[in-house]
């Protein structure tokens, strides 16, 4: 199987930067169809810049980007944008339509899709994110999580192969975050969708198959969430909030307890604690 995203030796420099200063430096990675990859790193590490390079919102200084076998260039950029759905951080600043259904239809209008098909696609997309009762609502009357779900419905309607989440849950409250993540998991279950999520949120990173760590514009590490989360307190340096289970482990270790080095989920941690108690 060929990778759906293939990035080779990508360099990026903002126009105002000097020639030797790079925001992204020699980044190479591939993503297979259907994979969920999380990209983590601090603020300013270049994560969002990387995402914007992938669909041609920014043009790289060097290197190649291939999306589904097509090399990204000025000639292919609009075709590639059809393949990539992108959800951004601020729920308000990406809501183009005056009502929910108008916003979901926006990408379809841009592609010139005939109206009868738009109507059915918008309807099914809204049903998929469980927002069908809000179709004629104005964005001012929605919560942040609802707005992000509408943004996701807009992606579903446009049927891209790749979904990029650029800190899509970072401005939401915990409940909104859970809603959005649940929606994405469901979207993935229903189709062969490739997800690339840029995040600080440990739950979001834990949902991924693979985690890429970016620091100062370079790809520092790559591994499964379990491998990456073993770093414990070093996670904070990577720009991730440490998961609760890991924080607990670190605290127990300071108390002189022998803790497992393997990454455990909260539930796994509880089980381990129970066993520890009963073994005594």
């Amino acid at each position, binding site marked *: 199987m060929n990778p759906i995203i293939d990035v080779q030796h990508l360099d990026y420099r903002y126009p105002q930067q000097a020639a030797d200063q790079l925001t992204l430096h020699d980044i190479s990675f591939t993503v297979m169809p259907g994979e969920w990859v999380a990209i983590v790193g601090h603020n300013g590490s270049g994560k969002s810049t990387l995402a*914007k390079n992938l*669909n041609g*919102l920014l043009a790289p200084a060097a290197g190649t980007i291939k999306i589904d076998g097509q090399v990204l260039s000025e000639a292919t950029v*609009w075709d590639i*944008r*059809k393949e*990539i*759905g*992108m959800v*951004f951080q*601020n729920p*308000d*600043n*990406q*809501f*183009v*339509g*005056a*009502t929910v*259904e*108008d916003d979901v*239809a*926006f*990408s*379809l*209008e*841009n*592609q*010139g*899709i*005939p*109206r009868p098909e*738009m*109507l059915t696609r*918008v309807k099914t997309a809204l049903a998929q994110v469980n927002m069908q009762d809000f179709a004629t609502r*104005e*964005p*001012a009357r929605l919560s942040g999580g609802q707005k992000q779900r509408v943004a996701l419905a*807009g992606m579903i309607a*446009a049927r891209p192969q790749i979904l990029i989440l650029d800190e899509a849950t970072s401005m939401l409250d915990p409940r909104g975050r859970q809603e959005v993540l649940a929606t994405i998991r469901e979207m993935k279950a229903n189709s062969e969708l490739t997800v690339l999520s840029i995040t600080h949120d440990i739950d979001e990173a834990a949902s991924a198959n693979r985690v890429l760590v970016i620091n100062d514009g370079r790809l520092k590490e790559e591994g499964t969430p379990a491998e990456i989360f073993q770093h414990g307190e070093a996670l904070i340096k990577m720009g991730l909030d440490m998961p609760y289970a890991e924080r607990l482990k670190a605290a127990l270790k300071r108390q002189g307890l022998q803790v497992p080095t393997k990454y455990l989920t909260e539930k796994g941690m509880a089980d381990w604690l129970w066993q520890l108690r009963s073994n005594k």
Partner: protein
Amino acid sequence: MMNKLIFGRYIPGDSVVHHMDPRAKLLLSFYFIGIIFIANNWLTYAVLFAFTLFAIYLSGVKWSFFINGVKPLIWLILFTVILQILFSASGGHVYFKWGIITISQFGLVNGVYIFFRFVLIIFMSTLLTLTTPPLELSDAIEYLLMPLRAVRFPVYEVALMLSIALRFVPTLMDETEKIMNAQRARGVDFGEGNIFQQMRAIVPLLIPLFVSSFNRAEDLATAMEARGYQGGEGRSKYRILKWHARDTWATVSFAVLTVVLVFLRA
């Protein structure tokens, strides 16, 4: 407060007037302003009033909204009426004359007509804004501007601009409220002191609002491009306007009204 001024105007409803095509409503409202000037006696004004009140009755909107529509303009209306009474050419019986000021029968009657004209126009335009959501109005404007495409006027872009502007009004209202609260917490007094002090208090409100608007604009442009927006050409439309039989009937009733007015005028 500002929210009510601009957006509290639309009152959701399920009447014939609410369901009319916004193009029909917009055009007929303008047309109505035109035919008001046909009326020139008591009978014609009575017909116009009967017609307007019937339209209001059909909309099912409470009368008080229309009275409230006239209230803020009452001084302007009275001022115009008084000017008309005092300075119009004399005719009929003259009651009072002093220098250039003349109060005549003719002037008084004209003053009352002008008052009626104002009230009719306000009632009809209030009916338009109370029964039509702003977004539908912007759709109607887009449609009516279509002929301008012949002279390369960017109709689609202007229409999208209008709809984005409308969509962001509540967002920016919220933001204004937030900034005002933040400034209040730092001791700024809004609505206190003389007019200059009040104006000065607005400055620390406007600057953060402008900065954030530009940031929003940039984010929105990025999001639109990411979703494949390449300008108005070649786009299909999700929202369409439909002309129904009721719109034809409304148009016909305005035509009949015109004929009646022409026959009854002095």
